[in-house]
Each structure stands twice: as C-alpha cells, then as structure tokens.
C-alpha cells in the first residue's frame, strides 16, 4: 500500500465539506449525511491498514515544499508514527460512528447539510492534525478545528446562549492559540525547524541539545502548553467547554469529548521531547492538570444539566491526561486519551439519545428511563462504569496507569488528589445514572421513547470499544500499548502496583455505592452535606466563580479599555488634529480682521468715495430721453458757438 494514500484521509472529508457547503442545501438535502459518512468511512478504510502497519512496527513519512521562510522553506507532509497511528485509529472510528449516529439525531433539521459540511471539515482538520509532520500544519489544522467548534457550537445560533457560547469558545481557545503561536515562533528561532522528526533529532541527544539555549526552550514549551490549556479546557481557560454544550449533542461527543479537546493533550505528546529537554517545565503541566482534574470533578458534583455534567467530567479526565504527561507518563496519558475518547463519546451519544427521547436536559426531570430506553441505558451504564474505573473495563486500565505513574514517580500529593477525584468521578457519574435511568419518572410531561437503530447501533459499537480497548495496555497484554508508544519517544515506565489498583477500585466502588445510597434509597444526605459545607457547595455550584472573575477582571476592563481608547482617539489625537485646524482657523480669523479693517478699509474707502461722487453725478441720469436730448442739444450749441468763435 502506498503510504502517500494517507493524503486522501483528510482530503476525502474535505471534499465532502466543499460539496456539502456549496450544493448541500439545494441538491443533497438529507443525502448530505451519506456523503459525509461515506468519505469518513473511506478515510477510515485507508487509515486503518496504515495504522495496523504501524502497530506492526512500520513508520511512514512524506513531505513537500510549502512556504519559503528565511533561507529555507517550510515543508508540509505526514508523519505516521505510533503516536499518530493511535490517534488516527481512534479518530477515524469514533468519527465515523458519531456521524452515523448524527444522521439519525439531526434528522429533520433545516440546516442538516450544513451540519454535515461542518463535521466533515472538522474531520478533515482533525485528521490533518493527527498525520501532520510539523507544527505549522498542526497549528493550521488546530485552528480550523477551532473554527469548526465555533461553527458547530453556534449551530443553533438563533439562541442567544448559543451565540454567546461559540464566541466565548473561540475567543478563549484563541488565547491559548496565541501562546501556542508564540511558542512556535520561539521554537523556530531556537531550532530553525518546526518539523517533528527534526526537532526530535535536535533534542534527543544530549550533545545537540546543549547547543540550544535552554531559556528559549523553556519559553517555547510553556507557551506551547498555553495551546493545550486552551484547547483541552484546562484551568484557567476551561470556561468555554461547559458552555460549548450549546451545540448539537453529536458535536459535543465528537469535538468536545473525543477528539478536538484531546488534541491539546496530543500537542503535549507531540512536543514531548521539548518538555523532556527542559524537565523544569513539567511541574507546571502536572499542577495545572491535577488541579483541573480535581476542580472539574468537584464542580460536576452539583450540576444538574446532563450535558454539563459530562462536560465537567471531560475537563476532569483531560486533567488526568495532562497530569500524566506532566509526570512524563506519555504512555499513560495517551492511553487514557484513547480509551476516554470511546467511553466519553459513548456517554455523550447516550445523553443525546436521552435528550432525543425526552426533550429535556435536566436530570431532575428524568428518572425511570431504563425500561423505556434499554439500549441507551445499558450502553450508558457500561460507559459510566468505564469512566468510574471499574475493572476490567477500559477506563480502569488507563486511569490506573495514570495513578501508577503518579505514585511511582513520587508525586504522592498528586496521587491522592487524583484518587479523590476518581471517587468523585464515580459518584457524580452514578448520581447521573441513577437519577436518569432508575427510580420513578419525576416529570409527568416527559414521554420518553427509545431512539432509532441508526443511533443505537453506534452506541453498541462504542460500548464494545469501551470494554475491550483497555486490554492492549493492561498487564494481560504486557502493556503492549505503552511499549509501542515508547518506540516513538522514550519515557520512563513503571511496574504495576497492587496498592494503586486497590485504591483505584475502592475509590470507584465507594463512589458508586454512595451515589446508590443517596439517589436510589433517597437518603437525604446530599442536602445535609450541602448545608454543612455551604461555602464548598456554593463554590461547586458556581463553578469556582471563574466566569465571574473573568467577566469582572478581564472582559469588562478590556471592553472599557477599548472605549477609553476610542474616546482618547476621538478627543486627544483627533482633537490635536482638529486643534491644529482650529488654530489655523483662528490665525485665519486674525488675518481676516486685519484684511477686513485695514486692507479692506482702504479699498472700501475708495469704493465709498466713488459712491459719493456717483450719488451726485447720477442725478443727471434721469432716464428721460428728452432730458438727454436737451442736454445734447445744449452741448451742441455750446460747441458750435465756441467753434464759430461767435462770442
């Protein structure tokens, strides 16, 4: 198989985008989804053999010249190493499944073809990002994903909340992107290249690394991490992700759970050599990831919107991944990225199915849906168990790997925080499950029904993935996945620890049990706890007040600064210009006075004198013809008398 075929992987969905956006609304209509799904499936079909070739030890690369920079040129191309192969595998499968699901979920929407155009563009961008071989192409794809995220969050733009949410999402991630851009510029200045393999080559060996100024590398690593913070919704730029739930649910599953937000983690994985070259940057990564994991889980405890709970859960899990990478656990982080993509996509799709069936999003209005939506409920519970970390589901293995990394690398505080977060994760997930699927129906107006097969089939496919995908990284397969990744970037590995595993399991089980006691037995502990720890409860409910802080200390001052500068522009700068104008006018006025009274005075005097003479002489001008005749006659007389010398 020709590896250059890989170019088709992003190009096919891009074709679907072009066709759908230009022709979709008028000609394709409901068939728009077929095109998107077909191209996505074709991309999958092309990508999977290549992935398997890489799994067997292959390595593909290719490039072409793109942009002349400095003395040389930037070359674009693809690089299929273990890291990108893993993501390629995940993205093509999850993406295709979600699109199949969406063709049912979005049925009847007036902007159906537009939706699939955007999703195809997103797929193209995500796949480009995954296979790209340099940071520029990576960044371009990264930004276009941001655009798709923007367009899809604002898909129902008639809603004010959606309009605000997409603006917020784009702008917040853009803050991180600017950091990423600066990081890239720094990197280019330091190394003269942005090509992944060349960066690896430059930094992998100690001697070569010593030639590069460390300060530039630190700067570049930290600035690039800003991109991750924005895209993967890490504290303090996480605020956009919960609001992003305004988009259609398949979008939340695809972009805001499985793929795009994971791209931030992927960025750190891609730039791993840089972080490894300057290990002093790692604690920053760890701290931010760890705090995010804890904070988001804590917020999720009190949320009631089904999608928002999942959104905070996503933030929290992304925090886990970032933490893992910060502790040099490339394998653990990437592993969790893959498994999380499957079960979180499944959770979102399940939630979508619930919303589709009930038309409500607040879990307080749900209840007893298990009977009415059995497929949705069973797959949802599988995914929840995976997320909570119940063995032998995939989430257990990957989360355990992260906890192990924390424990073994000596970050004990991190370990306990993450374990606590795992407990909270289990609790809020099963709070959600129990309130939604069990108990009695709380709202009589909700008439639930199971979703069509086109939606439940992808659910089952993802459920299978959620169950089995943990095994390649589990001790049963001798941590094949971790070793596979270590081909690409060497990083430390740790032996499994029974203590860590048991802590993880205990946390998960106790969380589920507590949720069961409170929400199945209807014990009123929750209210009691909320009362007892009111400040903490408020903190969680109000999402740590981050939005409010931004509003007060960032957004309003920025807008105010804009207005102040505008005022400044209009009064001071323009005022100076107008002042110059007024000054010359004043000077003109003085000169004008002089002109009028002195120069003009003289002229006017001449005029007035003439007028005076005129007033005398004009009396001769009677307008009477006989008068003139008489005068002429008398004049004639005088003339002849003088001429004839008669007198």
């Amino acid at each position, binding site marked *: 198989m020709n590896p250059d075929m890989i170019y088709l992987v992003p190009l096919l969905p891009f074709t679907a985008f072009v066709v759908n956006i230009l022709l979709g609304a008028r000609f394709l209509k409901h068939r728009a989804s077929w095109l998107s799904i077909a191209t996505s499936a074709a991309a999958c079909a092309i990508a999977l053999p290549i992935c398997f070739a890489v799994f067997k030890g292959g390595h593909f690369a290719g490039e072409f010249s793109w942009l002349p920079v400095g003395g040389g040129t930037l070359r674009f191309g693809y690089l299929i190493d273990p890291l990108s192969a893993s993501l390629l595998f995940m993205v093509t499968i999850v993406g295709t499944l979600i699109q199949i699901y969406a063709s049912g979920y979005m049925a009847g929407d007036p902007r159906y073809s537009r939706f699939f155009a955007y999703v195809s563009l997103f797929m193209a961008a995500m796949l480009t990002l995954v296979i790209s071989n340099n940071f520029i192409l990576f960044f371009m794809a990264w930004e276009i994903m941001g655009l798709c995220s923007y367009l899809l969050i604002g898909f129902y733009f008639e809603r004010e909340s959606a309009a605000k949410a997409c603006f917020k999402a784009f702008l917040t991630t853009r803050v991180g992107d600017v950091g990423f851009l600066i990081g890239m510029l720094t990197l280019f200045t330091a190394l003269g290249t942005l090509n992944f393999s060349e960066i690896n080559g430059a930094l992998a060996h100690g001697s070569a690394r010593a030639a590069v100024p460390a300060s530039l590398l630190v700067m570049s690593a930290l600035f690039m991490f800003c991109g991750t913070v924005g895209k993967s919704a890490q504290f303090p730029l996480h605020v956009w992700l919960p609001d992003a739930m305004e988009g259609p649910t398949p979008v939340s599953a695809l972009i805001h759970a499985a793929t795009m937000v994971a791209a931030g983690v992927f960025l750190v994985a891609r730039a791993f050599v840089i972080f490894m070259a300057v290990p002093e940057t790692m604690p920053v990564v760890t701290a931010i990831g760890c705090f995010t994991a804890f904070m988001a889980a804590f917020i999720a405890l009190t949320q009631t919107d089904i999608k928002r709970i999942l959104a905070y859960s996503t933030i929290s899990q992304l925090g886990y991944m970032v933490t893992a990478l910060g502790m040099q656990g490339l394998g653990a982080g990437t592993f969790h990225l893959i498994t999380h993509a499957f079960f979180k996509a499944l959770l979102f799709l399940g939630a979508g199915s619930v919303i589709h069936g009930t038309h409500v999003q607040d879990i307080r209005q749900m209840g007893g849906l298990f009977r009415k939506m059995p497929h949705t409920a069973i797959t949802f519970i599988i995914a929840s168990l995976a997320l909570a970390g119940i063995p032998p589901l995939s989430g257990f293995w990957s989360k355990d790997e992260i906890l192990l990394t924390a424990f073994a690398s000596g970050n004990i505080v991190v370990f306990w925080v993450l374990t606590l977060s795992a407990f909270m994760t289990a609790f809020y997930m099963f709070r959600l499950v129990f309130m939604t699927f069990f108990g009695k129906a709380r709202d009589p107006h909700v008439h639930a029904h199971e979703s069509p097969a086109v939606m439940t089939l992808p659910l089952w496919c993802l459920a299978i993935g959620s169950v089995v995908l943990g095994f390649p990284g589990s001790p049963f397969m001798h941590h094949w996945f971790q070793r596979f990744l270590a081909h690409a970037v060497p990083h430390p590995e740790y032996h499994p620890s029974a203590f860590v595993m048991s802590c993880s399991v205990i946390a998960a089980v106790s969380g589920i049990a507590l949720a069961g006691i409170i929400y199945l037995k209807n014990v009123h502990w929750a209210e009691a706890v909320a009362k007892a720890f009111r400040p903490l409860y408020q903190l969680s409910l109000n999402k740590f007040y981050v939005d409010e802080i931004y509003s007060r200390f960032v957004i309003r001052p920025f807008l105010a600064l804009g207005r102040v500068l505008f005022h400044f522009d209009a009064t001071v700068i323009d005022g100076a210009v107008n002042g110059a104008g007024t000054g010359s006018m004043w000077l003109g006025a003085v000169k004008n006075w002089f002109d009028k009274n002195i120069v003009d005075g003289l002229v006017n005097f001449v005029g007035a004198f003439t007028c005076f003479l005129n007033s005398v002489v*004009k009396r001769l001008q009677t307008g009477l013809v*006989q008068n003139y005749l008489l005068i002429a006659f008398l004049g004639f007389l005088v003339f002849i008398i003088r001429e004839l010398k008669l007198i």
Partner: protein
Amino acid sequence: MIIPLPHVLLFSLALFGIGAYGVLTRRNIIGILISIELMLNAAGINLIAFSKTTALAPETGQIFAVFVIAIAAMTATVGLAIVLALYRARKTVFADEVNLLKW
C-alpha cells in the same frame, strides 16, 4: 428766385426750431413724432431751396427730398409701432414716464 435764398433758409430754420422745441417739450410721444416730421420738413425745404439756387445739378436736391420723405414715412411707422407696443406694455404714451434707463 422770387424771394432771396436766406429768407427761405430762415423760414426752414424757424420751422426746424419749432420742431425741435416740440421734440424737447412734448410729453406725448406721438407729439414728439409729429414734431420730428416738422424738422424733417424743414430739411426738405432746405434741400429744395439749395437745389434751385446753388446746386450744380438741379435734380439732386429734389431726389434727396424724396428720400427724406421716404425716411419720414418710415420714422412715422416704426415710431408709432413702438408707441403702440409701449402703450400696451406700460399703459402710457408719455416719454417722462418711461425712465427705466436710469440709476
């Protein structure tokens, strides 16, 4: 010549003077025109008188007298047309009421 030439010339001079007086003093434009006819007649008399006495060719004066009569007829017609037009426009035939041509 039955009577001396200067006497005839004095007569025509008197006639001319009377006509000129009329031109200068008549308010009515028609009166002015009539006075002009007098002056033209005086000129005609002079022409005839000179053609009978001092001219080299005796018919010259008469021919110019004929021209004078023709001119007089033209003066009368055009002048009276102007008077009528004026009368229609300004409802007046008095020369001193037509004084637009002043300061």
